[in-house]
């Protein structure tokens, strides 16, 4: 490993990420109107006591990878130029990615609306969870941002949060432990019942859901109850031997991230050609190497 490069990149990520979050509630520039447009045709209530919290994860899934490619370039700039360069760098998501994210979020919302017709959404005001700060080990910054995030939700009158992705759920869980994040939250996968689905897949676990949030068995039960068939082999999908898609190492080494993704996809494909995921970052990382679909694309 190249320690010098890593040192440089970690420093850049820390300063840029924290600055963006504290100023704008997002890790990098995104078009918030486009990202929240999916909710308008459904007339999703704006705000409310219980909200669907996307944290822009499905909308930004592919963008994380795009920004990662720029980090080594920024490393050759002076620190003041890094901030301005990244600030001016608005990478737009591809329209098919936005459409796909919209379909997934619409489907999740439509399912959840059956249990709570008043379920709301913060639209373009929605903040990012700060998951990256935690995952990069920027723990003081994570706690500072967490306090700001909790204050934000309280001002909006939010009393319960339903998350749609593992990184956000894990982030809130860690904020609960480290700063006493007091707003109750739950993953939509732990809410949905009586949902139908079809198809035969190999399930690629989200590390965070299955190995950090204790959902390894629950998530399988939820999937199987829909009628979806999962192909299992403990050496590939077991809790100890199943492994990450590679996305979290992307900001530090995007090439390594891709190599891990390919290895994981190859590993999964020994069981079935169709790979099922529960996380937008797993989708973004694995989909170049196989046929990947999200749970929310096979249930209704």
């Amino acid at each position, binding site marked *: *490993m190249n*320690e010098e490069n*890593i*040192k440089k990149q*970690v420093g850049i990520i*820390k300063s840029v990420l924290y600055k963006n979050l504290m100023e704008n509630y997002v890790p990098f520039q995104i078009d918030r109107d486009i990202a929240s447009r999916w909710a308008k045709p459904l007339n999703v209530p704006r705000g409310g006591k219980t909200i669907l919290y996307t944290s822009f994860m499905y909308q930004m899934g592919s963008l994380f990878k795009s920004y990662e490619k720029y980090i080594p370039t920024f490393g050759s700039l002076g620190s003041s130029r890094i901030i301005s360069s990244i600030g001016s760098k608005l990478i737009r998501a591809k329209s098919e990615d936005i459409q796909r994210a919209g379909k997934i979020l619409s489907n999740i919302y439509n399912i959840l609306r059956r249990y709570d017709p008043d379920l709301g959404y913060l639209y373009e005001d929605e903040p990012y969870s700060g998951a990256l700060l935690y*995952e*990069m*080990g*920027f*723990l003081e910054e994570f706690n500072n941002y967490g306090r700001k995030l909790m204050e934000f939700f309280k001002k909006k009158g939010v009393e319960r949060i339903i998350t749609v992705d593992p990184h956000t759920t894990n982030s809130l869980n860690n904020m609960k432990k480290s700063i006493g994040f007091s707003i109750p939250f739950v993953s939509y996968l732990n809410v949905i019942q009586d949902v139908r689905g079809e198809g035969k897949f190999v399930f690629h676990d989200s*590390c*965070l859901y*299955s*190995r*950090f949030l204790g959902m390894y068995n629950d998530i399988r039960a939820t999937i199987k109850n829909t009628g979806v068939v999962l192909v299992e082999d*403990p*050496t*590939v999908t*077991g*809790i*100890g*031997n*199943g*492994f*990450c898609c*590679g*996305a*979290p*190492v992307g900001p*530090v*080494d995007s090439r*390594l991230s891709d*190599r*891990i993704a390919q*290895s*994981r996809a190859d*590993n999964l494909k020994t069981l079935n050609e169709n790979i099922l995921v529960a996380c937008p970052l797993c989708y973004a990382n694995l989909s170049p190497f196989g046929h990947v679909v999200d749970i929310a694309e096979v249930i209704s």
Partner: protein
Amino acid sequence: MTWSDVITKVSADNQREVDRVLENFPYIVDMANHLREQKLEVIGNFDKYIRKTMESVERVRGHAYMAKNKEEARRIVGEIVGEKKTVVFAKTNVAYEIGLRDYLKNMNNEVWETDLGEFLVQITKGWPTHIVEPALDLTALEAAKAVHELDHSINEKSSIDEIVAAVRKFLMSKYIKADFGITGANAVAADSGSVALVENEGNIRMDTVLPQNHIAITGIDKIVPTMRDAMDEVMVQAAYAGIFPPTYVNVTTGPSSTADIEMKRVSPATGPKNFNLVLIDDGRMEASQNEEMKEALLCIKCGRCYFSCPVYRIMGKEWVNTRSPYNGPTGVMWNYLTNKDPWPAEYCMHSGGCREVCPMKINIPEIIKNIKFIASNL
């Protein structure tokens, strides 16, 4: 075979084998749980258990030393061994940690690794790829080419059996003339002063019996309260390494001795006349006083976490640098602990399998997260 083929196969084999072992020998899980408690007891009271261990070793006519750091440990062993000796090494990670092999070689000693994998790493001038299987990344062809330099009957067409037989023959000549056998320890029992070692090749048995001097060098983290705990550690390590039952378990308590004539204890008998235990701190004591790090000291070096880790599965030995024999998830902890190098932690992507497969239930991702935090504040 490519590295990817090898690691995928070995990882799956380990998973299947450990599952089989735990099904057929279910008491291993109870042993592991008990061992964790016993090791926590030692980690919380290092001073007491170091003292007790050293007293026990002296009581059985051995010599015990305590080294604060790598330099002191090298010096102690160097003074015991001296110059122009033949030294046979059993696979010992602590020896790598302190750079002992090169140190003794530079003192004009003839030094040979005797574990087959470690021997191949030595003669190819490589670095261990895995803590239990050091030559995991070496193909049969590469092994044949390396062994050919020592035994010209081995060539590219030689079978694995022939390569192993050639190394066996070569090493036998070294065991016979060796002055010192240097081993690590899977566990050291504080109450008896015994060193317990587990293996399958038989080389450790040779290293600890044929030379007239045995030096065991190990970290203070390998101390356990009792002989029973030492046997537990040996069995648990073998089971989770996926090699159970082990072929050999070696227990050494001081130098060889006999009381066969008039019940008078005389030493030496057939085996070594000197037994030396060198304990090393090298960051372990400091870690024991740090709530966020101390669980790392529970590691029994079974190497199972390597297989569950996506970074190791891609990078192999290129991940953690060659200042450390410890790689994979536990290596990130141990490289920090012994070298204060936090940077390999930045590659950890909290896959979390390491915690799931660890027999000591070490929360490895949590420790690595804290090391990342340290790195990000440097």
